[in-house]
Protein backbone atom coordinates (compact mmCIF):
# COMPACT_ATOMS: atom_id res chain seq x y z
CA UNK A 1 0.00 0.00 0.00
CA UNK A 2 2.71 2.41 0.97
CA UNK A 3 4.38 2.12 -2.43
CA UNK A 4 1.12 3.20 -4.06
CA UNK A 5 0.94 6.20 -1.71
CA UNK A 6 4.60 6.98 -2.44
CA UNK A 7 3.88 6.94 -6.15
CA UNK A 8 0.92 9.25 -5.72
CA UNK A 9 3.04 11.57 -3.61
CA UNK A 10 5.82 11.67 -6.17
CA UNK A 11 3.40 12.25 -9.04
CA UNK A 12 1.70 15.06 -7.16
CA UNK A 13 5.05 16.54 -6.16
CA UNK A 14 6.26 16.41 -9.76
CA UNK A 15 3.19 18.17 -11.14
CA UNK A 16 3.39 20.76 -8.37
CA UNK A 17 7.05 21.43 -9.16
CA UNK A 18 6.29 21.88 -12.88
CA UNK A 19 3.39 24.21 -12.05
CA UNK A 20 5.57 26.11 -9.59
CA UNK A 21 8.36 26.63 -12.11
CA UNK A 22 5.83 27.72 -14.74
CA UNK A 23 4.34 30.19 -12.27
CA UNK A 24 7.81 31.57 -11.44
CA UNK A 25 8.46 32.08 -15.16
CA UNK A 26 5.14 33.94 -15.52
CA UNK A 27 6.06 36.11 -12.52
CA UNK A 28 9.48 36.88 -14.00
CA UNK A 29 7.91 37.84 -17.34
CA UNK A 30 5.38 40.10 -15.61
CA UNK A 31 8.25 42.17 -14.21
CA UNK A 32 9.92 42.56 -17.65
CA UNK A 33 9.84 46.00 -19.32
CA UNK A 34 6.66 46.31 -21.39
CA UNK A 35 6.84 46.19 -25.22
CA UNK A 36 5.59 49.78 -25.34
CA UNK A 37 8.46 50.84 -23.08
CA UNK A 38 10.97 49.02 -25.29
CA UNK A 39 9.46 50.36 -28.54
CA UNK A 40 9.69 54.02 -27.51
CA UNK A 41 13.46 53.83 -27.73
CA UNK A 42 14.52 56.04 -30.70
CA UNK A 43 15.54 59.70 -30.58
CA UNK A 44 16.89 61.86 -33.44
CA UNK A 45 19.23 64.75 -32.62
CA UNK A 46 20.20 67.50 -35.07
CA UNK A 47 23.82 68.54 -34.50
CA UNK A 48 24.09 71.32 -37.12
CA UNK A 49 23.39 74.15 -34.64
CA UNK A 50 25.63 72.89 -31.81
CA UNK A 51 28.09 75.37 -30.22
CA UNK A 52 31.54 74.23 -29.10
CA UNK A 53 32.08 73.69 -25.36
CA UNK A 54 28.34 74.08 -24.68
CA UNK A 55 26.72 70.95 -23.29
CA UNK A 56 23.33 69.94 -24.66
CA UNK A 57 21.36 67.36 -22.75
CA UNK A 58 18.90 65.28 -24.76
CA UNK A 59 16.59 62.56 -23.53
CA UNK A 60 16.69 58.98 -24.77
CA UNK A 61 14.87 56.07 -23.07
CA UNK A 62 14.36 58.32 -20.06
CA UNK A 63 18.10 58.83 -19.72
CA UNK A 64 19.96 62.09 -20.22
CA UNK A 65 22.28 62.12 -23.27
CA UNK A 66 25.29 64.43 -23.22
CA UNK A 67 26.04 66.08 -26.57
CA UNK A 68 29.19 68.19 -26.51
CA UNK A 69 30.82 69.75 -29.59
CA UNK A 70 34.55 69.69 -29.00
CA UNK A 71 36.73 72.75 -29.37
CA UNK A 72 39.96 72.47 -31.36
CA UNK A 73 42.14 72.34 -28.23
CA UNK A 74 40.26 69.40 -26.69
CA UNK A 75 42.02 66.07 -27.01
CA UNK A 76 40.87 63.89 -29.92
CA UNK A 77 39.57 60.47 -28.98
CA UNK A 78 38.46 57.27 -30.70
CA UNK A 79 35.13 57.69 -28.94
CA UNK A 80 34.39 60.95 -30.77
CA UNK A 81 31.48 61.03 -33.20
CA UNK A 82 32.78 62.77 -36.33
CA UNK A 83 30.42 64.78 -38.48
CA UNK A 84 32.13 66.64 -41.32
CA UNK A 85 35.07 68.35 -39.63
CA UNK A 86 33.44 68.51 -36.20
CA UNK A 87 34.02 66.13 -33.33
CA UNK A 88 31.32 65.39 -30.78
CA UNK A 89 31.09 63.60 -27.48
CA UNK A 90 27.80 61.71 -27.41
CA UNK A 91 27.36 59.74 -24.20
CA UNK A 92 24.76 58.60 -21.70
CA UNK A 93 24.89 61.27 -18.98
CA UNK A 94 24.80 58.90 -16.05
CA UNK A 95 27.84 58.39 -13.87
CA UNK A 96 29.10 54.83 -14.30
CA UNK A 97 29.49 54.58 -10.53
CA UNK A 98 25.86 54.65 -9.39
CA UNK A 99 23.94 56.55 -12.04
CA UNK A 100 23.84 60.19 -10.91
CA UNK A 101 24.05 62.89 -13.60
CA UNK A 102 27.45 64.61 -13.62
CA UNK A 103 27.38 68.37 -14.21
CA UNK A 104 29.52 69.95 -16.94
CA UNK A 105 31.94 72.67 -15.87
CA UNK A 106 32.85 74.53 -19.12
CA UNK A 107 35.76 76.42 -17.52
CA UNK A 108 37.48 73.23 -16.33
CA UNK A 109 36.28 71.25 -19.39
CA UNK A 110 35.27 68.45 -17.03
CA UNK A 111 32.18 66.58 -15.90
CA UNK A 112 31.83 66.46 -12.12
CA UNK A 113 29.45 64.13 -10.25
CA UNK A 114 27.93 65.53 -7.06
CA UNK A 115 27.04 62.16 -5.57
CA UNK A 116 30.44 60.62 -4.91
CA UNK A 117 32.89 63.07 -6.46
CA UNK A 118 33.62 61.24 -9.74
CA UNK A 119 35.01 63.25 -12.70
CA UNK A 120 35.13 62.66 -16.48
CA UNK A 121 37.01 64.47 -19.24
CA UNK A 122 35.45 65.79 -22.48
CA UNK A 123 35.87 62.37 -24.10
CA UNK A 124 33.89 60.76 -21.28
CA UNK A 125 36.92 59.05 -19.72
CA UNK A 126 36.94 58.74 -15.94
CA UNK A 127 39.73 60.86 -14.49
CA UNK A 128 38.93 60.98 -10.76
CA UNK A 129 36.97 59.23 -8.03
CA UNK A 130 34.99 55.99 -7.92
CA UNK A 131 33.68 55.64 -11.53
CA UNK A 132 35.11 52.35 -12.86
CA UNK A 133 34.60 53.00 -16.59
CA UNK A 134 34.04 55.79 -19.14
CA UNK A 135 30.60 57.28 -19.76
CA UNK A 136 28.69 54.84 -21.95
CA UNK A 137 28.00 55.64 -25.59
CA UNK A 138 24.41 54.90 -26.65
CA UNK A 139 23.79 52.99 -29.90
CA UNK A 140 23.82 55.68 -32.61
CA UNK A 141 23.67 56.04 -36.38
CA UNK A 142 24.92 59.11 -38.24
CA UNK A 143 22.53 60.45 -40.91
CA UNK A 144 23.99 63.62 -42.47
CA UNK A 145 24.13 66.20 -39.67
CA UNK A 146 21.67 64.14 -37.59
CA UNK A 147 22.22 61.28 -35.22
CA UNK A 148 19.62 58.60 -34.46
CA UNK A 149 19.94 57.14 -30.96
CA UNK A 150 18.79 53.56 -30.38
CA UNK A 151 19.98 52.34 -33.79
CA UNK A 152 23.47 50.86 -34.13
CA UNK A 153 25.27 52.35 -37.15
CA UNK A 154 28.72 51.26 -38.49
CA UNK A 155 30.59 53.90 -36.41
CA UNK A 156 28.94 52.66 -33.22
CA UNK A 157 29.62 49.00 -34.07
CA UNK A 158 33.28 49.85 -34.61
CA UNK A 159 33.48 51.43 -31.14
CA UNK A 160 31.69 48.46 -29.64
CA UNK A 161 34.06 45.97 -31.30
CA UNK A 162 37.06 48.00 -30.17
CA UNK A 163 35.70 47.81 -26.60
CA UNK A 164 35.40 51.60 -26.28
CA UNK A 165 31.93 51.27 -24.75
CA UNK A 166 29.67 48.51 -23.44
Amino acid at each position, binding site marked *: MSSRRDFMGKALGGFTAVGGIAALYAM*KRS*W*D*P*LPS*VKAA*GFTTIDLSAAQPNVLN*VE*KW*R*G*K*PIFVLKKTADMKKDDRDVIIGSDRFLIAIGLCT*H*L*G*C*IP*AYVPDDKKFKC*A*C*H*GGEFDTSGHEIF*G*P*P*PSPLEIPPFKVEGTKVVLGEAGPEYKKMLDAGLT*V
Partner: protein
Amino acid sequence: MAHFEKANSINEWMDQRLAVNTLKKVMQTEYWIPKNINFLWAMGMVLAATFGLLLVSGIFLLMYYKPDVNLAFDSVNYTIMSEVGYGWLWRHIHGVAASVVFLVIYIHMFTGIYYGSYKKGRELIWLSGMGLFVAFSAEAFSGYMLPWGQMSYWAGMVITNLFSGGSLEAYGLVEWIRGDYVPGDAFLTRFFMLHVLLIPLAIIGLIVLHFGTLRIPHVNNQDGEEIDFEEAAELYKAGNVKESKVIPFSPVFLSKDVFVMGVYFIIFFYLVFYKFEFAMDPVNFDPANGLKTPAHIYPEWYFLWSYEILRPFSKDLGLIAFAIAQVIFFALPFLDKSPNVAPASRRGKFHIWFWLMLVDMIVLTFMGKLPPTDALFANIGLVAALLFFALWIALPIITKSEKKL
Protein backbone atom coordinates in the same frame (compact mmCIF):
# COMPACT_ATOMS: atom_id res chain seq x y z
CA MET B 1 -19.47 15.47 16.41
CA ALA B 2 -17.93 16.48 19.69
CA HIS B 3 -20.21 16.76 22.69
CA PHE B 4 -21.11 20.30 23.83
CA GLU B 5 -22.74 21.25 27.15
CA LYS B 6 -24.99 24.27 27.49
CA ALA B 7 -22.79 27.28 28.21
CA ASN B 8 -23.55 29.61 31.14
CA SER B 9 -21.60 32.62 29.89
CA ILE B 10 -20.16 34.08 26.71
CA ASN B 11 -16.68 33.23 27.97
CA GLU B 12 -17.67 29.61 28.55
CA TRP B 13 -19.35 29.48 25.13
CA MET B 14 -16.18 30.78 23.47
CA ASP B 15 -13.97 28.49 25.57
CA GLN B 16 -15.90 25.41 24.45
CA ARG B 17 -15.40 26.31 20.81
CA LEU B 18 -12.03 28.08 20.73
CA ALA B 19 -10.26 27.16 24.00
CA VAL B 20 -9.88 30.88 24.75
CA ASN B 21 -8.99 30.25 28.40
CA THR B 22 -6.09 28.00 27.43
CA LEU B 23 -5.02 30.54 24.84
CA LYS B 24 -5.09 33.33 27.42
CA LYS B 25 -2.97 31.25 29.80
CA VAL B 26 -0.40 30.35 27.17
CA MET B 27 -0.10 33.83 25.69
CA GLN B 28 -0.62 36.03 28.73
CA THR B 29 -1.22 34.95 32.31
CA GLU B 30 1.26 32.04 32.26
CA TYR B 31 3.85 33.43 29.88
CA TRP B 32 6.61 34.25 32.33
CA ILE B 33 8.90 37.28 32.16
CA PRO B 34 11.87 37.74 34.54
CA LYS B 35 11.62 40.55 37.08
CA ASN B 36 15.27 41.49 36.73
CA ILE B 37 14.95 43.69 33.63
CA ASN B 38 14.87 47.42 32.87
CA PHE B 39 13.04 49.83 30.57
CA LEU B 40 15.11 48.67 27.58
CA TRP B 41 13.08 45.44 27.66
CA ALA B 42 10.00 47.47 26.69
CA MET B 43 11.40 48.34 23.23
CA GLY B 44 9.81 45.26 21.66
CA MET B 45 6.30 46.38 22.55
CA VAL B 46 7.19 49.98 21.63
CA LEU B 47 8.12 48.66 18.19
CA ALA B 48 4.91 46.66 17.92
CA ALA B 49 2.89 49.76 18.82
CA THR B 50 4.82 51.90 16.30
CA PHE B 51 4.15 49.30 13.63
CA GLY B 52 0.46 49.56 14.55
CA LEU B 53 0.62 53.34 14.04
CA LEU B 54 2.29 52.88 10.67
CA LEU B 55 -0.42 50.44 9.66
CA VAL B 56 -3.33 52.70 10.68
CA SER B 57 -1.86 55.91 9.21
CA GLY B 58 -0.90 53.96 6.08
CA ILE B 59 -4.47 52.75 5.59
CA PHE B 60 -5.72 56.33 5.55
CA LEU B 61 -2.95 57.53 3.19
CA LEU B 62 -3.78 54.62 0.88
CA MET B 63 -7.29 55.99 0.34
CA TYR B 64 -6.05 59.09 -1.53
CA TYR B 65 -2.60 58.11 -2.81
CA LYS B 66 -2.33 57.53 -6.57
CA PRO B 67 0.50 55.23 -7.76
CA ASP B 68 1.07 56.96 -11.12
CA VAL B 69 4.13 59.03 -12.11
CA ASN B 70 1.88 61.89 -13.24
CA LEU B 71 -0.40 61.89 -10.20
CA ALA B 72 1.62 60.57 -7.26
CA PHE B 73 3.40 63.81 -6.30
CA ASP B 74 0.23 65.92 -6.24
CA SER B 75 -1.85 63.21 -4.57
CA VAL B 76 0.57 63.36 -1.63
CA ASN B 77 1.60 67.01 -1.55
CA TYR B 78 -1.68 68.58 -2.61
CA THR B 79 -4.60 66.19 -2.04
CA ILE B 80 -3.48 64.51 1.17
CA MET B 81 -1.72 67.54 2.64
CA SER B 82 -4.26 70.27 1.96
CA GLU B 83 -7.58 68.77 0.87
CA VAL B 84 -8.13 65.63 2.93
CA GLY B 85 -9.37 66.42 6.44
CA TYR B 86 -6.48 65.62 8.78
CA GLY B 87 -4.57 64.14 5.86
CA TRP B 88 -1.46 65.95 7.13
CA LEU B 89 -1.82 64.09 10.42
CA TRP B 90 -1.64 60.66 8.78
CA ARG B 91 1.30 61.72 6.64
CA HIS B 92 3.24 63.20 9.52
CA ILE B 93 2.52 60.18 11.74
CA HIS B 94 3.61 57.88 8.90
CA GLY B 95 6.79 59.84 8.14
CA VAL B 96 7.83 60.38 11.76
CA ALA B 97 7.05 56.76 12.73
CA ALA B 98 9.05 55.46 9.75
CA SER B 99 12.07 57.39 10.99
CA VAL B 100 11.64 56.80 14.74
CA VAL B 101 10.96 53.08 14.28
CA PHE B 102 14.57 52.64 13.13
CA LEU B 103 15.94 54.46 16.17
CA VAL B 104 13.98 52.06 18.40
CA ILE B 105 15.09 49.08 16.28
CA TYR B 106 18.73 50.11 16.76
CA ILE B 107 18.20 50.54 20.54
CA HIS B 108 16.47 47.13 20.63
CA MET B 109 19.36 45.54 18.69
CA PHE B 110 22.12 47.07 20.79
CA THR B 111 20.27 46.11 23.99
CA GLY B 112 20.32 42.52 22.73
CA ILE B 113 24.02 42.79 21.89
CA TYR B 114 24.90 44.35 25.26
CA TYR B 115 23.14 41.69 27.34
CA GLY B 116 24.09 38.73 25.11
CA SER B 117 20.45 37.97 24.30
CA TYR B 118 21.36 36.11 21.10
CA LYS B 119 23.13 33.11 22.60
CA LYS B 120 22.45 29.70 24.11
CA GLY B 121 19.05 28.95 22.60
CA ARG B 122 18.20 32.54 21.73
CA GLU B 123 19.87 32.47 18.26
CA LEU B 124 16.54 32.29 16.44
CA ILE B 125 15.29 35.37 18.28
CA TRP B 126 18.26 37.25 16.88
CA LEU B 127 17.92 35.80 13.36
CA SER B 128 14.18 36.50 13.09
CA GLY B 129 14.83 39.98 14.48
CA MET B 130 17.46 40.61 11.82
CA GLY B 131 14.93 39.34 9.26
CA LEU B 132 12.58 42.03 10.57
CA PHE B 133 15.33 44.65 10.25
CA VAL B 134 15.83 43.72 6.59
CA ALA B 135 12.07 43.69 5.95
CA PHE B 136 11.67 47.10 7.62
CA SER B 137 14.57 48.45 5.53
CA ALA B 138 12.88 47.24 2.33
CA GLU B 139 9.58 48.69 3.56
CA ALA B 140 11.20 52.06 4.27
CA PHE B 141 12.93 52.17 0.90
CA SER B 142 9.83 51.20 -1.10
CA GLY B 143 7.75 53.74 0.84
CA TYR B 144 10.29 56.46 0.14
CA MET B 145 9.64 55.99 -3.61
CA LEU B 146 5.93 56.74 -3.38
CA PRO B 147 5.76 60.58 -3.14
CA TRP B 148 7.79 60.57 -6.42
CA GLY B 149 9.91 63.58 -5.51
CA GLN B 150 13.52 64.18 -6.52
CA MET B 151 14.95 62.09 -3.66
CA SER B 152 12.47 59.29 -4.36
CA TYR B 153 13.54 59.15 -7.99
CA TRP B 154 17.29 59.42 -7.44
CA ALA B 155 17.38 57.11 -4.45
CA GLY B 156 15.48 54.64 -6.64
CA MET B 157 18.01 55.13 -9.40
CA VAL B 158 21.06 54.69 -7.16
CA ILE B 159 19.75 51.74 -5.13
CA THR B 160 18.49 49.77 -8.15
CA ASN B 161 21.85 50.41 -9.86
CA LEU B 162 23.51 48.53 -6.98
CA PHE B 163 22.01 45.38 -8.50
CA SER B 164 24.18 45.76 -11.60
CA GLY B 165 26.86 44.20 -9.39
CA GLY B 166 29.67 46.62 -10.30
CA SER B 167 31.93 45.09 -12.94
CA LEU B 168 29.37 42.34 -13.58
CA GLU B 169 27.42 45.05 -15.45
CA ALA B 170 24.14 43.21 -15.02
CA TYR B 171 22.06 46.06 -16.48
CA GLY B 172 19.48 43.55 -17.67
CA LEU B 173 18.75 42.72 -14.03
CA VAL B 174 18.51 46.43 -13.15
CA GLU B 175 16.07 47.05 -16.02
CA TRP B 176 14.11 43.98 -14.98
CA ILE B 177 13.77 45.28 -11.41
CA ARG B 178 12.64 48.67 -12.74
CA GLY B 179 10.52 47.36 -15.61
CA ASP B 180 12.01 50.24 -17.60
CA TYR B 181 15.37 51.73 -18.58
CA VAL B 182 15.00 54.24 -15.76
CA PRO B 183 12.62 54.38 -12.78
CA GLY B 184 9.22 55.05 -14.34
CA ASP B 185 5.58 54.11 -14.02
CA ALA B 186 6.18 50.34 -13.87
CA PHE B 187 8.79 50.94 -11.16
CA LEU B 188 6.45 53.12 -9.08
CA THR B 189 3.49 50.75 -9.26
CA ARG B 190 5.52 47.66 -8.36
CA PHE B 191 7.17 49.37 -5.41
CA PHE B 192 3.73 50.56 -4.37
CA MET B 193 2.59 46.91 -4.39
CA LEU B 194 5.64 45.87 -2.36
CA HIS B 195 5.11 48.69 0.14
CA VAL B 196 1.41 48.17 0.82
CA LEU B 197 1.06 44.41 0.45
CA LEU B 198 3.94 41.99 0.05
CA ILE B 199 6.46 43.45 2.53
CA PRO B 200 3.84 44.23 5.24
CA LEU B 201 2.66 40.60 4.94
CA ALA B 202 6.25 39.44 5.39
CA ILE B 203 6.68 41.79 8.36
CA ILE B 204 3.54 40.49 10.09
CA GLY B 205 4.68 36.91 9.53
CA LEU B 206 8.14 37.70 10.87
CA ILE B 207 6.70 39.43 13.96
CA VAL B 208 4.71 36.26 14.75
CA LEU B 209 7.87 34.19 14.26
CA HIS B 210 9.90 36.62 16.40
CA PHE B 211 7.41 36.29 19.27
CA GLY B 212 7.36 32.52 18.77
CA THR B 213 11.13 32.23 19.04
CA LEU B 214 10.97 33.94 22.46
CA ARG B 215 8.61 31.40 23.93
CA ILE B 216 10.94 28.49 24.72
CA PRO B 217 14.24 30.24 25.63
CA HIS B 218 12.29 33.05 27.36
CA VAL B 219 13.29 36.67 27.70
CA ASN B 220 16.86 37.30 28.90
CA ASN B 221 17.52 39.37 32.04
CA GLN B 222 19.99 42.01 33.27
CA ASP B 223 22.45 39.43 34.66
CA GLY B 224 22.08 36.78 31.95
CA GLU B 225 20.96 34.47 34.76
CA GLU B 226 19.62 31.07 33.77
CA ILE B 227 16.24 31.00 35.52
CA ASP B 228 14.29 27.80 36.21
CA PHE B 229 11.07 29.22 34.80
CA GLU B 230 8.89 26.27 35.89
CA GLU B 231 10.05 26.49 39.49
CA ALA B 232 9.72 30.28 39.54
CA ALA B 233 6.25 30.03 37.97
CA GLU B 234 5.08 27.52 40.62
CA LEU B 235 6.30 29.90 43.31
CA TYR B 236 4.40 32.79 41.73
CA LYS B 237 1.20 30.74 41.30
CA ALA B 238 1.41 29.53 44.90
CA GLY B 239 1.18 33.17 45.96
CA ASN B 240 4.87 33.75 46.76
CA VAL B 241 4.91 36.65 44.35
CA LYS B 242 7.79 38.42 46.10
CA GLU B 243 10.10 35.38 46.24
CA SER B 244 9.46 34.40 42.63
CA LYS B 245 11.89 35.63 39.98
CA VAL B 246 9.18 35.97 37.36
CA ILE B 247 5.94 37.80 36.59
CA PRO B 248 3.23 36.96 34.07
CA PHE B 249 3.42 38.79 30.72
CA SER B 250 -0.11 40.10 31.07
CA PRO B 251 -1.25 42.04 32.96
CA VAL B 252 1.84 42.50 35.18
CA PHE B 253 4.71 42.96 32.71
CA LEU B 254 2.47 44.67 30.17
CA SER B 255 1.51 47.34 32.69
CA LYS B 256 5.19 48.32 32.91
CA ASP B 257 5.46 48.21 29.14
CA VAL B 258 2.46 50.48 28.86
CA PHE B 259 4.15 53.02 31.13
CA VAL B 260 7.24 53.12 28.90
CA MET B 261 5.00 53.33 25.84
CA GLY B 262 3.21 56.26 27.45
CA VAL B 263 6.46 58.19 27.82
CA TYR B 264 7.44 57.18 24.28
CA PHE B 265 4.16 58.38 22.79
CA ILE B 266 4.43 61.77 24.49
CA ILE B 267 7.78 62.27 22.73
CA PHE B 268 6.48 60.70 19.53
CA PHE B 269 3.45 62.96 19.20
CA TYR B 270 5.51 66.00 20.17
CA LEU B 271 7.61 65.18 17.08
CA VAL B 272 4.52 64.56 14.94
CA PHE B 273 2.94 67.90 15.81
CA TYR B 274 5.90 70.23 16.27
CA LYS B 275 9.09 68.72 14.82
CA PHE B 276 7.92 66.63 11.86
CA GLU B 277 10.31 68.42 9.43
CA PHE B 278 13.20 66.12 10.36
CA ALA B 279 11.35 63.26 8.65
CA MET B 280 10.46 65.32 5.56
CA ASP B 281 13.45 65.93 3.29
CA PRO B 282 13.01 69.33 1.56
CA VAL B 283 14.58 67.97 -1.66
CA ASN B 284 11.70 65.52 -1.95
CA PHE B 285 9.26 68.43 -2.26
CA ASP B 286 10.54 68.92 -5.84
CA PRO B 287 8.79 66.57 -8.29
CA ALA B 288 10.93 63.76 -9.76
CA ASN B 289 13.05 64.89 -12.71
CA GLY B 290 15.13 62.31 -14.59
CA LEU B 291 17.29 64.99 -16.21
CA LYS B 292 18.43 66.75 -13.04
CA THR B 293 20.35 65.11 -10.19
CA PRO B 294 20.03 66.85 -6.81
CA ALA B 295 23.32 68.42 -5.71
CA HIS B 296 23.86 65.84 -2.99
CA ILE B 297 22.10 62.48 -2.77
CA TYR B 298 22.00 60.84 0.64
CA PRO B 299 19.69 58.26 2.19
CA GLU B 300 17.56 58.73 5.30
CA TRP B 301 19.64 58.76 8.51
CA TYR B 302 19.07 55.09 9.34
CA PHE B 303 20.82 53.91 6.17
CA LEU B 304 23.74 56.35 6.43
CA TRP B 305 26.15 54.00 8.25
CA SER B 306 25.96 51.34 5.53
CA TYR B 307 25.98 54.01 2.79
CA GLU B 308 29.23 55.34 4.26
CA ILE B 309 30.69 51.84 4.06
CA LEU B 310 29.86 51.80 0.33
CA ARG B 311 31.35 55.22 -0.37
CA PRO B 312 35.08 55.33 0.40
CA PHE B 313 36.06 52.27 -1.66
CA SER B 314 36.32 51.65 -5.40
CA LYS B 315 33.06 50.53 -7.02
CA ASP B 316 33.47 46.74 -6.78
CA LEU B 317 35.12 46.76 -3.38
CA GLY B 318 32.50 49.22 -2.13
CA LEU B 319 29.68 46.95 -3.28
CA ILE B 320 31.23 43.90 -1.61
CA ALA B 321 31.81 45.87 1.61
CA PHE B 322 28.24 47.16 1.49
CA ALA B 323 26.81 43.68 0.87
CA ILE B 324 28.79 42.22 3.79
CA ALA B 325 27.75 45.08 6.10
CA GLN B 326 24.09 44.40 5.26
CA VAL B 327 24.22 40.77 6.43
CA ILE B 328 27.10 40.57 8.92
CA PHE B 329 24.84 41.20 11.93
CA PHE B 330 23.02 37.93 11.12
CA ALA B 331 26.26 36.12 11.98
CA LEU B 332 26.60 37.66 15.45
CA PRO B 333 25.43 34.57 17.44
CA PHE B 334 27.95 32.41 15.58
CA LEU B 335 30.90 34.81 15.70
CA ASP B 336 30.58 35.38 19.45
CA LYS B 337 32.42 32.29 20.71
CA SER B 338 32.13 33.12 24.42
CA PRO B 339 30.06 30.77 26.62
CA ASN B 340 28.94 33.71 28.77
CA VAL B 341 25.48 35.19 28.66
CA ALA B 342 26.16 38.36 30.62
CA PRO B 343 26.06 42.12 30.25
CA ALA B 344 29.00 43.45 28.24
CA SER B 345 30.32 45.29 31.30
CA ARG B 346 31.33 41.92 32.84
CA ARG B 347 32.87 40.51 29.67
CA GLY B 348 36.25 42.26 29.51
CA LYS B 349 37.35 42.87 25.92
CA PHE B 350 33.82 42.42 24.61
CA HIS B 351 32.86 45.49 26.64
CA ILE B 352 35.34 47.55 24.60
CA TRP B 353 34.17 45.86 21.41
CA PHE B 354 30.55 46.81 22.12
CA TRP B 355 31.23 50.51 22.68
CA LEU B 356 33.67 50.71 19.75
CA MET B 357 31.04 49.19 17.46
CA LEU B 358 28.33 51.55 18.70
CA VAL B 359 30.51 54.66 18.40
CA ASP B 360 31.87 53.52 15.02
CA MET B 361 28.34 53.18 13.63
CA ILE B 362 27.45 56.64 14.93
CA VAL B 363 30.60 58.09 13.29
CA LEU B 364 29.74 56.31 10.03
CA THR B 365 26.24 57.77 10.24
CA PHE B 366 27.53 61.34 10.60
CA MET B 367 30.14 60.94 7.84
CA GLY B 368 27.54 59.42 5.50
CA LYS B 369 25.50 62.62 5.65
CA LEU B 370 28.38 64.88 4.56
CA PRO B 371 29.07 65.66 0.89
CA PRO B 372 31.85 63.53 -0.65
CA THR B 373 34.10 66.49 -1.41
CA ASP B 374 35.83 67.12 1.92
CA ALA B 375 39.02 65.05 2.12
CA LEU B 376 39.26 65.08 5.94
CA PHE B 377 35.76 63.71 6.44
CA ALA B 378 36.23 61.21 3.60
CA ASN B 379 39.30 59.89 5.43
CA ILE B 380 37.45 59.67 8.75
CA GLY B 381 34.75 57.74 6.88
CA LEU B 382 37.34 55.37 5.41
CA VAL B 383 38.91 54.71 8.82
CA ALA B 384 35.49 54.13 10.39
CA ALA B 385 34.55 51.72 7.57
CA LEU B 386 37.80 49.79 8.01
CA LEU B 387 37.29 49.71 11.79
CA PHE B 388 33.81 48.25 11.24
CA PHE B 389 35.30 45.24 9.43
CA ALA B 390 38.26 44.98 11.81
CA LEU B 391 35.80 44.70 14.72
CA TRP B 392 33.92 41.84 13.05
CA ILE B 393 37.18 40.01 12.35
CA ALA B 394 38.28 40.56 15.95
CA LEU B 395 35.00 39.36 17.48
CA PRO B 396 35.57 35.56 17.34
CA ILE B 397 39.18 35.99 18.53
CA ILE B 398 38.46 38.15 21.58
CA THR B 399 35.37 36.16 22.59
CA LYS B 400 37.19 32.83 22.30
CA SER B 401 39.77 33.94 24.86
CA GLU B 402 37.07 35.20 27.22
CA LYS B 403 37.09 33.53 30.64
CA LYS B 404 34.00 31.65 31.70
CA LEU B 405 32.20 33.65 34.37
